[in-house]
């Protein structure tokens, strides 16, 4: 698999944007994953689907509809936190490391063939959603 990944063309994303974040202890933190997750009453992902799903933070009826064969699924079947660490973030609030957990999180599906829609459309729309709910920091978990 690693050999295959090394053959994938890496897009040129240009200069790295860089924000000075709010202090962690005051910050609202959200998860943005590419695990292809939805809650049970949302539509699943289609092949090479670059849309996203908004995952309410209090929902645990999570379903994975990622289309790639090339990753381990059993870990997530046993424990959602291994891809979607929502319970771990709640614990970090309790100990005061972060300010709060966002009310909703975001899931895309990884293994995209082209990134144009994600970069110019759905990624920006997801960012607007996060901004509107007051999210300061996103932890990105890949699949």
């Amino acid at each position, binding site marked *: *698999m*690693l050999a295959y*990944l*090394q053959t994938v063309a*890496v*897009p040129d*994303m*240009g200069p*790295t*944007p*860089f924000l*000075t*974040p709010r202090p*962690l202890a005051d910050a609202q*933190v959200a998860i*943005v994953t590419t*695990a292809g997750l939805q809650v049970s009453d949302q539509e*699943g992902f289609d092949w090479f689907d670059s849309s996203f799903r908004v995952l309410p933070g209090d929902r*645990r009826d999570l*379903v*994975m*509809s990622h*289309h790639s*064969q*090339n*990753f*381990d*699924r*059993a*870990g*997530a*079947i*046993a*424990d*959602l*936190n*291994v*891809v*979607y*660490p929502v319970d*771990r973030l709640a*614990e*970090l609030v309790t100990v005061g490391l*972060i300010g709060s957990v966002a009310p909703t999180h975001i899931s895309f599906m*990884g293994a995209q063939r082209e990134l144009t829609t*994600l*970069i110019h459309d759905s*990624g*920006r729309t*997801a*960012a*607007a959603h996060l*901004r509107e709910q007051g999210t300061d*920091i*996103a*932890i*990105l*978990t*890949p*699949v």
Partner: protein
Amino acid sequence: MCALAHVLEREGIATVTLVTRARLFPEQMRPPRALYCDFPLGRPLGKPRDAAFQRKVLEHALALLDSCEPVLADFPEVVDDDGGAPLACAVPPRVDAGLSPAVGEARGLRAAFDRASGGGITSAIDPGFVEDSLAAFERVQAGTPWRDAGFPERPQRCTLAIRGYYEQAAVALQQSSGGARAAEAWFVDHTIAGGTIKSALAAMRASGEPGNEWGILLSTLQDR
């Protein structure tokens, strides 16, 4: 994931990206903050049901927000991909001797599949779809051309559903995911369904039709 980090940061959300297996992506795409974790693909927090380890990963990631410039750091611990070591999972006895071997096996796993999801993520799988898909693979195995075998969907979608069904049942039976790819290895090498798909795959390849017609049926790790 690194592209998404660029987009979100540009749009006002500070990001920390966990990266597994392929360090070349953050090296070349330069997201604002990335923590490279040598963990199996599909387990970005490293270890299921190990809250302390997962917290440690998050704490390392969040610490990167103290940096005043773009940063790519390495998590100090490695979690190995167990690859070929299969889960030791016994398949329940077949409940209906009148069913074909693979369909009967799948039916026997139904109860385990249904009780999964204790703290985990399930897959959107219809057990009837799994049985119909397995019946189609059995027909290919028996010599029917794959286009005439009655697949309910493209064969790649069928294998994804079958694999997901078996892995979900296996985790429920074992009360554990085992090592990374262990449930997948069990499915491919130790079940009738896995053997049926491998045989059918060989027949599809031998038919001479291009692979892009029937797609990737097994992961690169298991297609051997």
